[in-house]
């Protein structure tokens, strides 16, 4: 990469897309020094997608880096039909899935693994914790609890949940990235959301916050 590339300036204030397009054009034209600037906004996303599948920081980082390197290598193959972020995510998902297959790393027996995907899921906790301010995410222990909870999901639910609700991919994009049907994405997503709610309800209902004033949740019975 050599020296730091000059920053590409575009006129409009809300021009993130235009800027991305310009960076893409230049990278595809051979100015590879702009590639990091192109993928920087998606670093966290790519890492998270890999982490959702591999559940190990070091493996996820390796997979994310390899995915971005592959994206650089095959940048000419990117077509504008898809969003660049989606394309990147798909490469990361494929890389992580390939590594998981290689490592046969399905060793945990997380929640929901033995449940029938098509069967109905009955919520277990009906506590109302409707007022959770996003500021809770400033607290490291809360972030850790949430990360642990998603890690406790079975692989097939975790993958769908992370791509859809963390990466904000559409149902179609998630289905395509994982090679499953739209119906399966929807079913797994429902399961994942309800299971996470059940996993988090006891903590978010009060025990993680102590006397935090915003917690008004209570059992309705």
């Amino acid at each position, binding site marked *: *990469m*050599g020296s730091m590339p000059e920053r590409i300036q575009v006129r409009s204030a809300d021009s993130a897309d235009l800027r991305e397009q310009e960076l893409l054009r230049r990278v595809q034209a051979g100015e590879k020094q702009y*590639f*990091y600037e192109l993928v*920087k906004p998606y*670093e*966290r996303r790519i*890492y*998270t997608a890999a*982490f959702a599948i591999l559940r190990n*920081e070091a493996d996820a*980082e390796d997979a*994310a*880096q*390899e995915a*971005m*390197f592959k994206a*650089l*290598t095959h940048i000419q193959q990117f077509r504008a039909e898809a969003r660049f972020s989606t394309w990147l995510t798909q490469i990361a998902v494929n890389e992580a899935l390939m590594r998981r297959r290689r490592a046969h790393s399905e060793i945990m027996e997380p929640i929901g693994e033995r449940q029938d995907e098509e069967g*109905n*899921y*009955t*919520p277990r*906790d*009906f*506590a*109302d*914790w*409707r007022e*959770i301010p*996003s500021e*809770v*995410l*400033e607290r490291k222990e809360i*972030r850790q609890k*949430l*990360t642990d909870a*998603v890690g406790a999901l079975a692989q097939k639910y975790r993958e769908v*949940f992370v791509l859809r*609700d*963390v990466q*904000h991919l559409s*149902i179609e994009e998630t289905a395509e990235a994982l090679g499953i049907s739209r119906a399966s994405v*929807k079913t797994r*997503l*429902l399961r994942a*959301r*309800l299971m*996470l*709610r059940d996993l*988090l*309800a006891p903590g*978010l209902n009060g025990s993680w916050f102590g006397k935090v004033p915003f917690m008004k949740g209570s059992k*309705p019975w």
Partner: protein
Amino acid sequence: MVVNCEHVWKEISNYLDDDVDAATRAAMEAHFKECKHCTAVLSGTRNVVELYGDDRLFELPAGFSRRLQRRLAQPITSRFGSSRTFWMLAVAAVALMVGSFSLANSSVFRRPDVRSKLAQPAHKIPPALMVAVSSEGRVFHVPGCKYLHKREGESPELMTASNAIKEGYVPCARCLRQYLSAEVECPRSRLGDEFALRSQEPVAPPPGF
């Protein structure tokens, strides 16, 4: 349209994604007004979606960006580790090939020269030349060659030289010597001399064959 709790739980994810039809949405909203359990499930599920949708939740490991930039700075050939390693591997491969070739051609492995003149290559013999073979021998001859050994009473079999070669016969170094690369001293055969003077056109067998 009226929905029960089970129906609501089944559709609650689609409801949050605004992926239900208008009638179902209306029925679910009517249900939420009367059912605290389902309202709690709805708000909890919505919180899950909102919390996990926040970019702050998953942090990158310290130094991730720096390591990524370093990785991206590697040349494309880095599948082999580095360009230097790649070139070293390439040079080693070429050296190995050249070495193997030289070794294969060295005297150690070269096939020794054939010692018998009978085994001289028969490639100069006209393929259509009619030759004679016997059931006992492995040599093909010009018909009438006195060196054609055959059982008593046996008639030589006639075939083209190309077929004889295909079947593993080798040319007679006497009667066919004009076509071979090495000359041998041999007694002249009557027909051998005669055929030796002829052109390389197919030869008809003499009468009696």
